[in-house]
């Protein structure tokens, strides 16, 4: 059972509270599947438009490195709990994912990049994010297979921006699984239908 009582400042600052629409993202980065390597971890970050603000919660993080015993899947169970406020729906939040592998010697190597929009409907969602990685020349790929360390992006802007993607040559990597619960507040006051 979950029961709600009004927040302490609700009565005093009612006009301010009702102006801002709020989004709660409550869920976790479950894990991966389909990556051809073990001991994977993920660096994730939330990318927001200009009108958005993070009220509570951590908007970036890094999961643990999981060496899986269960085939080609990894499990992180990394919690995500964010409280955002906004005055508009432009720049709806997106999650940027960078999957790396860590070997026994502690070296870190890129496995894949991915971006996924946070769902716009309230409720529970199971998301699957397809990831990709940049492909180098034949020599670079052979070196990557034996020694590690293939091409990586210099800036994360290429992951979420649509403008410069045409310059890239990429290959598919595995899937990242997320479970997100979305709670919306006050969007109907802006006339937004979801």
């Amino acid at each position, binding site marked *: 059972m979950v029961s709600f009582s009004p927040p*302490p400042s609700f009565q005093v600052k009612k006009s301010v509270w009702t102006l801002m629409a709020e989004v709660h993202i409550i869920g976790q980065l479950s894990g991966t599947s389909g990556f051809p390597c073990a001991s994977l971890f993920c660096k994730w970050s939330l990318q927001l438009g200009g009108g958005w603000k993070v009220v509570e919660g951590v908007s970036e993080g890094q999961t*643990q490195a999981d060496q899986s015993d269960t085939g080609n899947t990894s499990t992180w169970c990394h*919690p995500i709990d964010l409280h955002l406020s906004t005055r508009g729906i432009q720049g709806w939040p997106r999650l940027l994912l960078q999957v790396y592998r860590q070997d026994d010697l502690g070296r870190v190597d890129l496995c894949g990049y991915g971006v996924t929009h946070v769902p716009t409907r309230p409720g529970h969602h199971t998301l699957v994010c397809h990831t990709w990685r940049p492909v180098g020349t034949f020599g670079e790929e052979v070196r990557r297979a034996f020694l590690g360390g293939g091409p990586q992006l210099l800036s994360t802007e290429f992951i979420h921006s649509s403008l410069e993607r045409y310059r890239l040559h990429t290959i598919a990597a595995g899937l990242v699984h997320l479970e997100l619960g*979305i*709670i919306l507040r006050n*969007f109907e006051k802006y006339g937004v239908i979801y």
Partner: protein
Amino acid sequence: MGQIECGRFLNGDNLRFHCCFTAGHDWEVVTGLEEFMSQTACRSDDERQVFVWNFPFDITFKSTNPFGWPQVILSVYGTDFFGNTVIMGYTACHVPITPGKYTRRLTTFVPESASTVQKLLSWLTGRRPEFLDPKLIAQGRGREVTRVRSQGEVTITFNVMMKDFTKFGYDCGATGKTPYLAVQPQPQRSVTVPSEGQSEA
């Protein structure tokens, strides 16, 4: 409310778990147990090879803010080949945010030692690496330095109900209606007794 139904693990026997609920600063437990420990379950003899706890829990939270939504954290312990009690897996998940019945299958993971020598020593002595505070799993911070190995899974069933959630403008995507609000009270009508010779129409 719900039950922690069963677990599937390849290794180990005599499994029991320690379960706790954690939530943010704005949350408060109204009734129910926040932490509890299960019975010790043996592996089943049939082809399922499953550990059944069927452990019920019933807890009520109160809050002013959805931030810090409650999470359930499980730490599963068991005996290894040498008879030592070792950690078999940790897992955590958020309580579902929408009312209804849910069954979640959570994969568990154990911390890994940093070097091969430490792994061998911990396997021999039965002192496997453990988290000092299992509530670390429910947090996002501080996990980038941990190495884990995933093994086993636990099945949990949740039944979630909410009260007064939508009154403050929140929408969690729930489609159910509160039964007592669905029927509007009928206004009282005055009763006229037709006098002799008149009909009611």
